[in-house]
């Protein structure tokens, strides 16, 4: 009985993961390589052949490449600032963490309130007398502005998740390490790059993996702000599955997102590898 107990406790969760995680992902793989019951690459050919594919692919990559590094810097800055204050620390941490609880769709709508034609950005520009008539920011002909709006909404929404992980990680670093470096005359910057940053690697790993994967899954923010004018991978997946009712191509898209996610997870794990002996 004593021997079996841990297995009994793990059994429900394990079964659930098998049925709702491993098995469905197996199904996606099969579905992406079959059409009408036969093994084929037709789904992939159809996906790549459509003009929106490469746009969606590069839009997603570009958005990730712009947004994630900025967020990393912001999250590190937030965590460092908060570690320097005592009064009001918890309140400020809570405020910084608020976007963590906000849906990507809601974040898109929040920034729509700012960027839409009768929105707050236009109202502010007109208040300062910079424009006479509202500018149409989020249109087909203004893709740069659409991109900026989406990037801002993404930065606003998802910096919190990295910040929370980094703050928690900084809390685990013994204060003595920094104090010792200080005694030996290390400057603030040196202390950050030589002590805090290396010890923070496990947290950075987690934060980056979670965030980069979320960036590849970007969907509702884009729909709310760009409509169909800014294709991204997840949006195309949704279109093929839901609107065009072609599950094969949707599965092929899913495989692309999956491939990107696994590849980047491995890259991040390698880049920020921490040997077991070096962990605190």
């Amino acid at each position, binding site marked *: 009985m004593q*021997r079996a*107990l*841990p*297995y009994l406790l*793990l059994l*429900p*969760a*394990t079964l*659930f*993961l098998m049925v*709702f*995680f491993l098995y*469905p*992902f197996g*199904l996606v793989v099969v*579905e992406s390589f079959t059409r009408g019951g036969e093994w084929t690459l037709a789904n992939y050919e159809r996906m790549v052949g459509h003009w929106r594919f490469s746009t969606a692919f590069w839009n997603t990559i570009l958005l990730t490449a712009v947004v994630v590094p900025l967020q990393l810097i912001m999250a590190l*800055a937030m965590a460092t600032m908060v570690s*320097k*204050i005592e*009064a009001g620390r918890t309140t400020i941490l*809570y*405020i910084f*963490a*608020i976007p*963590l*609880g*906000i*849906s990507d*769709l*809601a974040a898109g*709508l*929040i920034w*729509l*309130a*700012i960027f*839409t034609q*009768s*929105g*707050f950005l236009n*109202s502010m520009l007109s*208040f300062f007398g910079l424009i006479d008539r509202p500018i149409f920011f989020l249109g087909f002909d203004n893709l740069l502005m659409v991109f900026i709006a989406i990037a801002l909404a993404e930065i*606003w929404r998802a910096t*919190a998740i990295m910040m*929370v*992980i980094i*703050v*928690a990680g900084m809390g685990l670093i013994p204060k003595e390490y920094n104090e010792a470096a200080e005694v030996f005359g290390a400057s603030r910057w040196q202390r950050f790059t030589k002590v805090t940053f290396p010890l923070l690697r496990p947290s950075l790993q987690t934060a980056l993996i*979670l965030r980069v*994967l979320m960036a590849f*899954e970007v969907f*509702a923010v884009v729909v709310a702000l760009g*409509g169909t004018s800014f294709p991204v991978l*997840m949006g195309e997946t949704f279109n093929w599955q839901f609107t065009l009712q072609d599950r094969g191509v*949707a599965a092929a898209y*899913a495989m692309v*997102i*999956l491939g990107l*996610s*696994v590849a980047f*997870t491995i890259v991040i794990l390698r880049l920020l590898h921490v040997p077991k002996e070096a962990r605190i």
Partner: protein
Amino acid sequence: MTVATPAADPLAAAAAPDVRRAGRWVLWTGIVLLVLWVLVPIYLLMVNALSSPAEVNAFPKRFWPSFDLSSLTFFFQFQGVLEALWNSVRVATLTMLISIGLGAPAGYALSRFEFPGKEAFRFLVIMTRAFPLPLLALPLAVLFIRTGLDDSILGLALVHAMLALPFAVLITFSLFSGIPVELEEAAWTLGCTRIQAFVKVVLPLAAPGIAASAIFAFVISWNEVFAAAVLTIQNRTLTAFLLQSLNVSPLPLKFAGGAALVLPALIFIFAVRKYLFAMWGIANR
């Protein structure tokens, strides 16, 4: 407060106090700017939600609300909104029950036992992180049609529970690890069975943390858009409803809907604020 660690900071203490003061000033300016960066967009959404439709569409716009509730009334009386809201609550509640019900026992097992296969299970849980989980909705849509779970509250809750389960396992694992096993052992020597010891000693200590992770699971489901939009047609959740009516609904409806999504999430995150950092920090290592 002005000099946090005087003994460990001889150089800085010797430096001119002006430099210190300037540093403080820069620090607080940065903090205030970042606080505004987070709060102002939410405030602007609320201004829209609390203004009449005419004011929402007007230009230029005022930067404070008129507290006219007609946008919100319009939203709540809109065909399908109340049902969608109720569906969201039901899906999120089920998600919470399934993910904690399955995740907490696993977290307890990981924290208390050494056994062959433990690392394999941990790997399986952590591996879910490398996968874009909302995509699970695609194959499951087909499976659900076969099993009659399509367009159902339970079907969607199962997918959302899959999103929340890895967190539930890792968070409860760290919670139970934080409760000394000696307390349990003491209860056993005093004649408690394993189950009694768990219910009387461990559970009261872990309950607030478990409640916090349950709320977290609720928020994950409440906010999820992709799977909800793929899997529900008649029984849409609020996010699915808003997404699918985006290109047809007028602005006031969108903003009132956005506010209806944001407000409960804000309250929930406030409720678990004490646990946010402990949960994420330790659970994610």
